[in-house]
């Protein structure tokens, strides 16, 4: 067992929570890019961004299912759950930052990096040592954060292996790590879409299946014996290839080889985008302005949404449909409104949601005090 293996149930729980942080961390970036596209334009890009964002939400929910399955506690309201942007994600080749920014060629490149499949790199080791500023959240196998996972795939592989090992150990003792309340499992009927991708995690098989789904949807099919396909075994196309279609200007169809799509053409109108302030902060907006208030209101609503999700993941799963889903639709409207408003003194750039959840909670806390 390597030093960076996940040896304890407690450590696995921490990793699964990190998985939720990770999956969620991409959302502000994807959603901002999505809503920066001027309505009625760039329909292909919009559809792709929307699908990916929805699946990131799905992945976060799968991570919650995994965490709940082993009796862990999901809490999205804890400090640091929403990172401060820009934030870092690991990549096999080099570090990169995720920004909250409009849909631009550089944003697209970032998205490709986020979803880049393992095999494309030259990964030999699971963890690396990088220089990452202290305040920045990162995927780390240990609490001190001295080392980090090389890729997201490696991170999930570590989790998968840990599940297998810890369950084997438990079975050997005549018990199981799957001690969580099955009533906490979020299944398709509670979720946004009826696609049948959410299933309860109640044992090792379903846990492994769930982790594979996350990996495949993100990076593509990773069976080492086969070259990675554009489509998975269900005919689904992985996030990386979805984004690559935008870069290559053409859709993949079944049978296409990576890098050589043959489907219908895609055109992108980079001008039909509201250019937003990059990594906006409340401080960028004039205090007391309608804009400031709206951005703050968004953050408050988002903080409340995370609290609601926390409840939904902790047994009140009917809240998913009744409250969390409508809230998601609301964010679309709120973000759109922010993005269409020019930000004063920001060189003609438009506003965007800041996602400063911790700061907002601090402001609210002060206000209460």
């Amino acid at each position, binding site marked *: 067992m390597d030093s960076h293996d996940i040896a304890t149930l407690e450590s696995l729980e921490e990793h699964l929570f990190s998985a939720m942080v990770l999956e969620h961390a991409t959302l502000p970036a994807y959603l901002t890019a999505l809503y920066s596209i001027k309505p009625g334009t760039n329909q292909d890009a919009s559809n792709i961004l929307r*699908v990916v964002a929805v699946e990131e939400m799905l992945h976060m929910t799968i991570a919650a299912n995994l965490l709940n399955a082993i009796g862990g506690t999901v809490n999205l309201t804890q400090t640091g759950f929403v990172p401060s942007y820009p934030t870092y994600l690991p990549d096999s080749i080099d570090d990169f930052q995720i920004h909250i920014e409009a849909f631009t060629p550089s944003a697209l490149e970032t998205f490709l990096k986020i979803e880049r499949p393992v095999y494309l790199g030259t990964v030999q080791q699971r963890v690396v040592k990088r220089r990452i500023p202290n305040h920045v959240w990162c995927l780390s196998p240990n609490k001190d954060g001295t080392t980090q996972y090389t890729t997201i795939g490696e991170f999930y592989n570590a989790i998968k292996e840990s599940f297998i090992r810890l369950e084997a150990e438990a079975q050997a003792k005549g018990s199981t790590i799957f001690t969580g309340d099955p009533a906490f499992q979020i299944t*398709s*009927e509670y979720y946004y*879409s*009826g*696609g*049948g991708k959410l299933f309860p995690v109640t044992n090792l098989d379903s846990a492994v299946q769930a982790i594979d789904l996350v990996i495949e949807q993100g990076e593509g099919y990773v069976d080492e014996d086969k070259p990675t396909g554009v489509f998975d075994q269900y*005919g689904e196309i992985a996030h990386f290839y979805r984004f690559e279609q935008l870069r290559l200007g053409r*859709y*993949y169809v079944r049978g296409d080889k990576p890098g050589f799509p043959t489907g219908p053409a895609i055109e992108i109108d980079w001008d039909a985008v509201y250019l937003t302030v990059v990594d906006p902060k409340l401080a960028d907006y004039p205090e007391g302005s309608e804009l400031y208030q709206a951005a703050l209101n968004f953050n408050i609503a988002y903080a409340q949404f995370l609290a609601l999700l926390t409840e939904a993941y902790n047994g009140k799963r009917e809240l998913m449909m009744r409250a969390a889903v409508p809230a998601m639709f609301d964010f679309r409207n709120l973000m759109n409104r922010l993005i269409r408003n020019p930000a004063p003194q920001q060189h003609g750039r438009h506003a965007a949601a800041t996602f400063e959840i911790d700061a907002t909670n601090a402001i609210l806390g002060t206000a209460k005090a």
Partner: protein
Amino acid sequence: MHLRIDPTRLTTPHEAVGDGHYDAVIVGSGLSGAIIAEQLCKEGKRVLMLEASPITNKSLRGYNEYVTNFFVSPSKDNQSPFPENPNAPMPRTPTLRKLQPGEVNTNSYIVQAGPYVSDSNYTRTLGGTTMHWEAKTPRMLPEDFKTRTLYDQGLDWPIGYDDIEPDYQRAEREMGVSGDVAALRYPGGSPYPKNYVYPMQGLPLSYLDHMVDRGIAGTSVELDGETIPLQVRPYPQARNGVPNAAYDGGKGYTPVGAVNTHQVDIGERCQGNTNCVPICPVQAKYWSGKTLAKVLRMNDELDKGEIKILPQAVASKVEINPENGHVSGIQVKVYKTPGSPEHETITVRGKIYVITTAAIETARLMLASGLPSSSGLVGRNFMDHAFILCWGLMPEICGTYRGSSCTGGILDLRNGPFRKNQAAFSVDIHNDGWGWATGSPYSDLTSLVDDGNLFGGPLRQGLVDRLSHQLLLAFMIDVPPSESNRITVDPQYTDALGNMRPNLSFTTPEYSMRGAAYARQFAKTVFSRLGVDDHTQYNPENYGYVVYEGVGYEIRGGNHLCGTHIMGTSKNNSVVDTNQRSWDHANLYLVGGGSMPSIGTANVSPTIAALCYRSARAMLKQLS
């Protein structure tokens, strides 16, 4: 879901004529055409499908263009998503006007000979009228199949409800119906087999439905000495919801989302766009493209059949072999572009012929081919539901303009002994306000601004007061068949390709008007229980204005076109047999609402779909 109509699946006039190996020629790509094609291809048959419109809009982008067309059309009528096509025109409501006695309106595609003007329409485009159907899928009641025997009204079917029940189940699977069987205990008992559940759980009732239910649950009406308790119940709908784990003996169900040329994940669950009619923007609603997508996929499977689709192909004449009365071919006019009448005329052939172009077009084609049938009933017994609308303002904010167009209704008067005397009805509670009746919410906005002289805060308050309280009840009233309600053709009225246009003569029968008059009273009763401020007003200038017993009503069509080639027990009392096969022409099937001898109080599509399965079995038997 992947829908790929790649060039190899589209055929050309030349190829279509040269290919003598089609098992079936299907005219139309709507609900019936798609389901029958799917059933035939599944069994290895080769199908040629004729579609009158161009097939350019086969991707999601194309579908979205329909949505955009709708958004930018100030009139926002049912057909506004679909471009004008003089070569395959369709009825459009804005061209209607009231007729004076004896007057004929030839400005609309359907020549309206009156006395009543129908605003019913159907869509001639890939997907047919499933493009704008509302997707409510109640079944007909067992009693609806024998109204003559039971109530001395209308015509009996040659088959019973039990004969068609298993096919209802097949149709409900194919269309992906969300519904709650337990909530649908119809008057006369549940028509569902024990333990049956719909593929998906019922769509939640709207806030408005709940408010109406609070007002009427526990109350009843007296009709013909019978006490009828009232309740708001959810409609089954062919719209994606939450899959029911208990479906199919516990196997569950996977919803089919939007179809597209490439992968897109959308439409697997209704989002509440409140726009089922005329077009669901996310394809959560079933349309026949979803079934066609399955057919097209079969082309890649070895043991399955094949489909070829010929677009811009308008069937002009059914040709008959005089020796045996069989259909020898279908003459088709294939036009180059919708903007020009230029076309070539070809004849396509197959072993059997299936015409699925909806009651009006099917009758039109048969009559234009000189085939009124032995009984002379082609075109006769035209039926459509008579709708009357009643509307008002709820005493509290009820959140109108949210949710699918209609989620719940009052189904308690769909059946009962009163049907001896007056037509039954089903009541829809509309989530989209008074739109259908008054052009709300635009008409309200303009009147608040232009007539109300409101602006700023009072305008916003006025909008809330006026719109968020809106309730509209739509009564779908049974219309029995009457031979004089009919479709004819007349060589003086033709379209751009020279095809004769359908002419319609129609009167709402007295039996249905009695139901309509009672419906108005019923609405008043319900309104008084709810404290609704009744704003119903029928305008004598409206094309649907009818005076009955001294009181005026506006009757609107339901787009539930039926009865122009009814099924029956012999060639003398009907046009087709119980398998929708023509009595006169053994290799011809006329499939669709036209075969139905009654329509009861159910939206007709699920029944049409169920009949397709029955007919497809007969076709396969005939072909083998």
